[in-house]
């Protein structure tokens, strides 16, 4: 039997892993690319509900949802990634011609509409009563006592894989193209890049990752209700990447763990419920102060984005005379 605070720590870390995944997704579209997406929760919710609907069993008497495929868990995860991608594609198709504030508001509005739909279309989601008894990975192979740790390890493994994949793409030419669009879209277009196509792809990648995060969130909670998918998820994800360092994947992960642990430290103390509510609010106030302070004194975050350095190509002697170089650079061949 694990002591209480260890269980508590495991639960905090598991939640932080979910947020790290959402933050990585958001960082890819908003930090590496420059999309001001205030609706990342849409992808997250789509993934979570896709996972739930694909894996949950048929409804009991108390429940009103009609679907419930009871499919294997791995199909649910693929479905979650697919649903996130699809929602990102649809929202992107509709709104990517909008810039900055307009895009921000549209994505925000989409997130709210999606949440209302999830709340009200009870045949699909069972409404605010939610769906429960969600399938968790490797649940039957381990003792109940040990399972929280197993779940944490599974999610950390997913986080590591996602991190490596996104980080690789970020540092490669694809990520560089997104950086260029973020920095100066008009100039990037003169390099032959169609901004819209790249933006759509970066949003879809974010959608896939946030969708997977959604499935992980279901594992963490084992129940799913629409109230879990308010825009506060989006704001937390933004806070995480702004504090961590916009554009830096390591910053996104670090930011998520810092934020969730800061939030949870105070929960360790035994508090009466009325006091606990107030302390919870005060914690949010502290996070607000941290966000403001970071933006004021360290606007590029705790871990600012770093540019890759390339070593000089061997063929070239550093101190070459300009005129000589010119002869070789002839273009228009």
């Amino acid at each position, binding site marked *: 039997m694990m002591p209480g605070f260890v269980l508590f720590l495991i639960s905090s870390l598991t939640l932080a892993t979910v947020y790290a995944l959402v933050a990585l997704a958001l960082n890819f579209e908003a930090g590496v690319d420059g999309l001001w997406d205030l609706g990342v929760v849409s992808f997250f919710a789509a993934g979570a509900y896709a996972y739930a609907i694909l894996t949950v069993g048929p409804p009991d008497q108390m429940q009103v949802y009609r679907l419930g495929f009871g499919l294997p868990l791995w199909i649910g995860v693929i479905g979650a990634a697919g649903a996130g991608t699809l929602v990102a594609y649809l929202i992107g198709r509709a709104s990517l011609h909008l810039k900055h504030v307009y895009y921000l508001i549209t994505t925000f509005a989409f997130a709210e509409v999606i949440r209302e739909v999830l709340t009200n279309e009870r045949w699909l989601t069972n409404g605010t009563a939610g769906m429960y008894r969600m399938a968790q990975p490797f649940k039957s192979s381990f003792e109940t006592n040990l399972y929280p740790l197993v779940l944490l390890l599974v999610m950390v493994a997913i986080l590591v894989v996602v991190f490596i*994949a996104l980080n*690789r*793409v970020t540092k*490669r*030419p*694809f*990520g*560089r*193209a997104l*950086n*260029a669009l973020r*920095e*100066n879209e*008009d*100039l*990037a*277009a*003169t*390099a*032959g*890049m*169609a*901004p819209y196509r790249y933006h759509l*792809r970066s949003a879809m*990648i974010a959608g896939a990752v946030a969708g997977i995060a959604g499935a992980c969130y279901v594992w963490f909670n084992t129940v799913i209700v629409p109230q879990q998918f308010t825009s506060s998820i989006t704001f937390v994800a933004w806070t995480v990447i702004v504090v961590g360092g916009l554009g830096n994947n390591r910053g996104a992960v670090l930011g998520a763990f810092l934020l969730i642990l800061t939030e949870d430290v105070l929960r360790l103390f035994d508090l009466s419920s009325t006091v606990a509510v107030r302390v919870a609010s005060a914690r949010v106030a502290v996070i607000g102060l941290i966000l403001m302070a970071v933006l004021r004194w360290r606007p590029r975050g705790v871990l600012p*984005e770093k*540019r*890759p*350095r*390339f070593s*000089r*190509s061997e*063929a*070239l002697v*550093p101190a*070459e005379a*300009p005129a*000589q*170089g*010119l*002869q*070789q*650079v*002839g*273009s*228009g*061949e």
Partner: protein
Amino acid sequence: MLETREVSKHFGGVKAVNGVSLMVEEYAIVGLIGPNGAGKTTLFSVISGALSLTSGRVSFEGADISGHRPWEIAEKGVVRTFQTPRGFPRMSVLENMLVFASERTTGFWKNLLAGGRLSAEERRNISRADEILSSVGLLDRRNVLVEELSAGELKLLEFARPLMAKPKMLLLDEPAAGVNPALLEHVVTYITQLRNNGLTFFIVDHNLGFIMDICDHLYVMADGELICSGAPDAVACDPNVIESYIGTKTETTV
């Protein structure tokens, strides 16, 4: 090579460009001058696809490119620069070059699934970028962020960057603006050499001396319309041109 026929761009009631027909021959250096607000940059934006045209036709190598988007026009080999060079500020000089590399390496899946090493194309692109950077004397600054460059270095990068795309034609918007005389001389030789290597230039600038020096042919715009054209020494005598230049000077000093 590049031809505009009766090209117009109106903003509401303002005729920024009005019925401009001009031609840029292959391997030529053609200049476009005129006072502030004459519509030169607007014409550039229309040619490069950044602005849609109200009427008229733009063709490149005989094919109609009017109404094409900027990236499509860039793919055809027409690359423009901007009046205020900004580059990609928070990316390194070398990365600024690589973004323009003609050899595309930006496929998502390819990037994701490739191993740890740089791809062969990427390595070729880097060595090409290094060559170009050394030709403008920026090789030592290759890993510096563009926002940390001096104004002069930024200007040099502005010339170097589009070359990565192996363009057929460069549209330069005020390349001489803010360039000191010593550097300007370098720029003139550089442009001439590139032309000798097979590049075509269409240049907008205020610096009359520079334009006269470098261009084979000159167009003069005022109030959205072409007012005259010809070889540099011939155009300079035209009273219209002088008048429009006096106009410029008084405007800029206000």
